[in-house]
């Protein structure tokens, strides 16, 4: 089968399998694939997997991973009370199909697509609102992922009607060469880190400098002319020493070259989706895995040395392609796997072997969403947005897009919560003294650790006895009920204080700064 024919088949398969909701049940139970792999692996390693996480731990993990927020006490109670033995798989399926998860995954994906960085300039040269709406729709409709990649690589035209072009527009930026766009495309769609090869052959990633510039040449005709335009001829440039540029014709990493007359974007999408090693599907599997387990399944960049599972990545990738590149089906497989569902208590060697559950720092989007809930930041941001953007005649129309509003809110939350100059991929949970000072002592944040504000205010209004209030705080913040000694300790503490509101603030501060709150476990 030629590459193009195979691609066609994949699209037909994907499109055909797109609508029927029962697709997941038609194929073999997906979780088995991961379970089968680890059963073998654990046996070979001589380890026994831990017990399943209890309902509270599992539900907090799932909610953070699929909605990007903490579960409410009501949701927790109702999940814990559910007697259905199949409730975990059911909850996972229901949540994955919801608007809320589409919204969250769109933000996580968008964050990756824009390389965790939005500047005001980006809003000027790209329309990020339509891009976000489109990514959200893709998750909501479970659009086959190969189609998504094809759009991102080959769509051309107006930025509002062809929202995927905004990915290219953002990364074309003002650079004379589309290096950033090439680097991002290789990273996201091929799982390849080619940055080093811009200037020299990279033996670790087995990418040569020639390959780098051959790949980059696919993007050379692109132009940000308001809309994304693919020119038919590329103006020749004098190679400049500081770019280490090699003038080359487009050539894919495996040596394939586009047929003459074919649009380069189309050719690039074909090549990307039909590599011999299934690089594109593997890269997606890997990214999904990282999201849910906090670790990559296979190495992504130079110098990564920890243990990986390329065989499992391969099996999952093949299964993913065979089943119409359905992101939702893949995520279900992960969420229903034993490795995802086991308790995360235990020693780190066991965690390295997936014999106990994941322990991960909150991702930046989760972090912002959680704090937006805890401190009512969403409402505060919204007021600011209405005043500073909606009512501001000087603010460009693209800023008034509600999709963009959400992006601005993340940016504003980031300014409050993360000290500047930090890698946005890491958040508080991985911990630096700087971050700890901000959370423990920043006076703006401390003024919100207040019985008259946010989550704490809502809890104190809803529950009245110290026992109920402490329990509600535990559920709302760390997703579990207090142990009896804990309950005793904090109830006694609250009762012993002359002004009990201040005592609740102390407990709230304590939970807020705890590892149990800041990690997903």
């Amino acid at each position: 089968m030629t590459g193009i024919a195979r691609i066609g088949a994949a699209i037909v398969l994907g499109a055909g399998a797109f609508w029927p909701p029962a697709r997941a049940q038609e194929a073999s139970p997906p979780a088995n694939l991961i379970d089968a792999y680890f059963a073998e692996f654990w046996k070979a390693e001589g380890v026994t997997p831990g017990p399943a996480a209890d309902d509270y731990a599992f539900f907090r993990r799932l909610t953070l991973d699929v909605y990007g927020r903490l579960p409410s006490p009501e949701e927790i109670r109702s999940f814990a009370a559910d007697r259905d033995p199949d409730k975990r798989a059911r909850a996972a399926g229901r949540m994955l199909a919801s608007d809320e998860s589409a919204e969250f995954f769109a933000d996580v994906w968008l964050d990756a697509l824009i390389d965790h960085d939005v500047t005001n300039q980006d809003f000027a040269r790209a329309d990020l609102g339509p891009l976000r709406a489109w990514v959200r729709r893709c998750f909501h409709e479970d659009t086959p992922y190969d189609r998504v990649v094809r759009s991102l690589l080959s769509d051309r035209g107006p930025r509002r009607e062809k929202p995927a072009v905004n990915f290219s527009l953002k990364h074309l930026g003002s650079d004379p060469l589309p290096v950033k766009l090439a680097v991002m495309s290789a990273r996201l769609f091929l799982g390849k880190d080619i940055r080093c090869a811009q200037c020299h052959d990279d033996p670790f990633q087995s990418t040569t400098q020639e390959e780098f510039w051959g790949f980059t040449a696919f993007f050379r005709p692109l132009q940000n002319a308001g809309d994304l335009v693919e020119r038919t001829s590329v103006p020749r440039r004098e190679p400049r020493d500081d770019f280490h540029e090699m003038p080359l014709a487009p050539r894919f990493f495996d040596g394939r070259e586009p047929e003459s007359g074919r649009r380069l974007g189309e050719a690039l999408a074909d090549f990307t989706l039909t590599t011999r090693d299934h690089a594109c599907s593997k890269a997606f599997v890997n990214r999904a895995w990282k999201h849910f387990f906090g670790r990559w399944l296979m190495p992504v960049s130079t110098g990564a040395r920890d243990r990986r599972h390329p065989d499992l990545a391969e099996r999952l990738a093949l299964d993913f392609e065979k089943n119409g590149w359905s992101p939702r089906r893949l995520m279900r497989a992960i969420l229903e796997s034993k490795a995802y569902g086991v308790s995360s208590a235990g020693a780190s060697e066991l965690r390295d072997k997936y014999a106990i559950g994941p322990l991960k720092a909150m991702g930046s989007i989760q972090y912002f969403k959680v704090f937006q809930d805890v401190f009512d930041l969403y409402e505060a941001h919204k007021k600011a947005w209405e005043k500073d953007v909606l009512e501001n005649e000087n603010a460009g129309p693209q800023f008034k897009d509600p999709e963009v509003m959400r992006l601005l809110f993340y940016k504003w939350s980031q300014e409050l919560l993360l000290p500047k100059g930090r890698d946005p991929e890491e958040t508080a949970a991985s911990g630096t003294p700087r971050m700890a000072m901000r959370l423990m002592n920043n006076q703006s944040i401390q003024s919100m650790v207040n019985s008259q504000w946010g989550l704490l205010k809502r809890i104190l209004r809803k529950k009245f006895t110290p026992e109920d209030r402490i329990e509600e705080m535990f559920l709302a913040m760390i997703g579990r009920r207090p142990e009896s000694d804990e309950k005793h300790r904090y109830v006694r503490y609250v009762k012993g204080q002359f002004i009990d509101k201040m005592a609740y603030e102390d407990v709230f501060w304590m939970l807020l700064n705890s590892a149990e709150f800041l990690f997903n476990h």
Partner: protein
Amino acid sequence: MSAGAALAEKFGLPLLAQEGRNARAKYGILLWMPGAPSQLDTWDPKPGAETGGPFQAIDTAVAGVRLSEHLPRMARQMKRVSLIRTVHSKDLNHDTATYLLHTAYRQAADVEHPHLASVVASELGIEARDMPPSVVLGGAPPVGAGYLSPEVAPLVFDRIDAAAEDVLPGAAQSRRKLKRRWEMLQKFEKRFAEQMEDRRLEQRRLAYQKAYEVLTSARVKAFNVRWESDSVRAAYGDTEYGRACLMARRLIEADVRFVEVMYGDWDTHRDNFDRVKELSQQVDRPMAALLEDLAQKGLLKETLVVIMGEFGRTPRVNAANGRDHWPTWSVALAGGGIEGGRVIGKTDESGLTIVERPVRVSDLYATMYRAFGIDPEKKLVTSPRPMKVVEDGTPVQELF
């Protein structure tokens, strides 16, 4: 013979005898001028030249050394200050040049180099466990600890006044309240830490511990310039930059190894002269007060002070009355065993070419590290690949 030895011989400085004779820097202050100040309108004036612009040059405390008329207080400090007027590099992009001038290395995709402050803290050791090893005020530097241990990462405050918000006690949380909550947190954390044994949790615990030690340290009031007398504060000037420079001195006194203060937008593509005049007037008093104050307290001999930006600006004035990016510029150094009153290197009468003693960024860095007694040739790490303190740099011996 090494280039350094050759130069030392040329200038009649016996290299070996010279080494270790002078005082060594134990602390460092970098006054960073983001955007690249115009050298011709500050440290290397060319009045009367076609490229010289409207500023006059004034005499300084050192005969024959002249500065822009808008740096009168610094002019009086020149016995303590030496200038290198011929630092040069090819990198004229703000981001990558800022990286270069903070690390002595070109930015690379596979490795992050450490900030100068982190190298100093790592090599000289962290003096005070209850204070950060180094502090950056007024901006976000392009790097942190890089491949060195995270514990030597600078504590960064993007706004000068943000230091107070994050570090000092305030109306929303007193020290007593913080201590009470901290005790509760310690007790609460035990259960989870025992259940989940993990390196990242340990890392986080250490970060919190360090943060708490700083927050509750008696020395944290170094971040609060209101402890200074009115006359001292007046000497620095009651401006954002004045407070930052004063805070820098207080932090050094509190055994913080290195302080960087970032100030101003010196990227004057348009309207160069009005803006440089205004900026010079803003920084002149605080910079001079800092040198005077350090000297009077006996701290200058052990504190290296460096004033610089990431590159220079074109001698030719553009159509917007601005100056664009240029590969040669001036750097001012004082204290920490650096002899004052010297001028290294010379540009021609229009500032267009270097006529004497070019100094590379690696040489500048070798000079700074030499002041700290750090061997520029030393390998800091061997993994991911061997990394020297400075690659191919020779200290400017004439400054010692």
